């Protein structure tokens, strides 16, 4: 992030990177690595929702659908078509892009409200297909035994088949994806998307082709979610219809809202905290979900604008300077 390369922010980023890279060598716990790997995936997934909901202002329930489509397309590309995991990811992105353009172009012509409805129906339809189109999806059994991603470069061969290498793969994927999203969102693209959200009429009066931008946001978010989903199922080694679970939608929404709609760094922080939190609560066994719910409620009551709001409040207190440093500005 260019702004981050300057001054304290850049230093912090460097520190984070060093921590992330050094962690597997400092800790021998595969469980912790697994939690961190999950956090990486879910943060990317949540960020994809943030692109379309937090930035463009379109509430989409289709993200979990694209995540699942990515999982299935990825798995099928490998098991049925004999492609590599990377082919699977590309295919997942391509299929998701086409689907996203199709559903958003049709529904957005009508209204934002229509888009929300279609996004719900879309996900339900996919879940039903995954359950019932047994010839292709293997139904509720899912497709188990997916191979580990591997790199073959001439004589060079490497398989991501242990937790540490899978963690690094997820880290690389998340870093690349989040960086790309961050760069896009902090540019005029992000500004334009936020314009749509704040005042669509005004945006149109300034010549913004709003529908196109919304379709763009939907497509971009879909590709990210689908590629994350594809990589994720190879990490799990199984894809089954529970990949469309409401659980993921809820997790995404909670991360995005707790992080603050349209925020970037606070949202990433929220992603990690909210994936780690239930795991930390595991020590309290069966009542942990109650605690989780209580923490959520408390969060809404005491930090109503999410981490981003918290940060903004601090900033307002500590500086009276210009507001160009706002997330999304150049």
């Amino acid at each position, binding site marked *: 992030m260019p702004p981050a390369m300057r001054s*304290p922010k850049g230093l*912090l980023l460097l*520190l*984070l990177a060093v*921590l992330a890279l050094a962690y597997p060598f400092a*800790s021998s*716990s*595969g*469980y*912790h*690595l*697994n*939690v*961190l790997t*999950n956090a990486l995936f879910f943060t990317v997934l949540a960020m994809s929702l943030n692109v379309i909901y937090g930035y463009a202002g379109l509430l989409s329930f289709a993200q979990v659908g694209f995540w699942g489509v990515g999982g299935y397309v990825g798995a099928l590309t490998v098991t049925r078509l004999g492609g590599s995991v990377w082919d699977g990811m590309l295919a997942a992105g391509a299929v998701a892009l086409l689907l996203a353009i199709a559903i958003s172009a049709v529904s957005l012509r009508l209204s934002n409200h229509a888009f929300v409805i279609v996004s719900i129906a879309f996900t339900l339809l996919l879940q039903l297909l995954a*359950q*019932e189109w*047994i010839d292709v999806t293997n*139904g*509720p*059994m*899912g497709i*188990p*035994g997916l191979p580990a991603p591997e790199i073959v470069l001439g004589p060079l061969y490497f398989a991501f*088949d*242990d*937790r540490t290498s899978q963690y690094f793969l997820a880290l690389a994927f998340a870093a690349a994806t989040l960086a790309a999203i961050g760069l896009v969102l902090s540019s005029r693209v992000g500004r334009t998307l936020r314009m749509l959200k704040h005042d669509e009429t005004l945006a149109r009066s300034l010549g913004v082709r709003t529908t196109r931008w919304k379709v763009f946001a939907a497509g971009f978010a879909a590709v990210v979610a689908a590629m994350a989903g594809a990589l*994720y199922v190879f990490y*799990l*080694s*199984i894809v*089954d219809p*529970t*990949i469309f*679970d409401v*659980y993921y939608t809820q997790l995404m929404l909670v991360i995005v809202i707790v992080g603050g709609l349209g925020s970037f*760094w*606070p949202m990433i*922080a929220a992603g*990690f*905290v909210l994936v*780690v939190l239930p*795991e*930390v609560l*595991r*020590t309290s*066994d*069966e009542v*942990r*979900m109650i605690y989780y719910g209580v923490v959520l409620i408390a969060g809404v009551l005491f930090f109503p604008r999410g*981490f981003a709001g*918290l*940060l903004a409040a*601090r900033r307002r207190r500590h500086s009276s300077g210009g507001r160009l440093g706002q997330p999304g500005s150049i």
Partner: protein
Amino acid sequence: MMKKTFGASFLAVVLAAGPAMAQEAVQIGVSAPLTGPVAHGGEHEMRGIRLAVEEINAKGGVLGKPIALTVEDNQCNPSVSVTVANKLIEDGVVAIIGAQCSSAVLAAMPVVQKAGVPLVSGIATSPSITEKAGIGGNPWVFRLNPSDRELAVADVNYLASLGSVKRVAIVAESTDYGRGGAEAFAKAAEAKGIEVVSTDFHPLGAADFTTILTRLGRSGAQAIALYQAPADRANFVRQKEALGVKAALTGKLNFAGEAHEKLLADGAFDQAVTAFPYAPEVDTPANKAFVAKLVAKYGETSQYESFAGYEEVYVLAAAIERAGTPDRAAVRAALTKTSYASMLGGTITFDDHDQAHNKAVISRVDGSKVTVVDVFSTN
């Protein structure tokens, strides 16, 4: 600057979460669905597991040490199941019991194989677990319960021997369990010349069966084979009774749990016939004692999951004792040589695919009375 605080506290929390377990105990991990749609199954499994561990510890534990349980909730979700398996392995468990749901077991299988930790499953029914386990596959996974295929054959054979049932309908939940069961039943019925008039799959958690029942009432089916989760089955049976659909129930039934006991008492299961891995009515001293203990502790009779949990622990404990060390590989080797006297009578051993062939029970209901017709060996 918040990020630094977040990052630091996050790491601190994660590191602190690693439990410092007592070194004296033998650690056994449990992965079970404790929340979510099949939480009741996990709950009952835990009852059996806890009872068995208490008994064993009261008698001095294994290898002279007490057994300590580490229980994790897998929500019946494959990805959570992987997380849970990893956590248990990190916690240093000798072996894992679980994960109840077939897809959760399947997701955990590569994890335990990589780490080299034995996994003992007593409830999941998917045939692919057996296919993947043991010889030529994953040598770390052991299954105690008979598959639904074996149960369906026994069930249909008994139905056929009655001679009164020529036409059956199948109603099953649309999951691996339901579909697997329905397929097995249909195949067995075909072999015995019983006609399957219809097969209906419904989503898990369906509350209303009036539509299916309306159709079945007119289909001329003399029996309805059910492969459903307990809550769905209770709804189905209750509504069948109210709509006056005359057909005997069969398939994979049990009568445990408050709702089913009420239905049984009300005569809703009259003329039912079923082959099930367990029945609390089975008249062996071991089972009678087990049921009594469970009733005393929880005020409810034993359910299948409790029975499975109880035997899972005993099979595992015996293997650890035989191994003479809480070493995972040694325990795995010992597990393959299991020879355990089941509460249902007979002896449990594992075949090449690490599949045990525990006994199963054929029961029939007359009015409100459950009679165990046969306790048979599966193969």
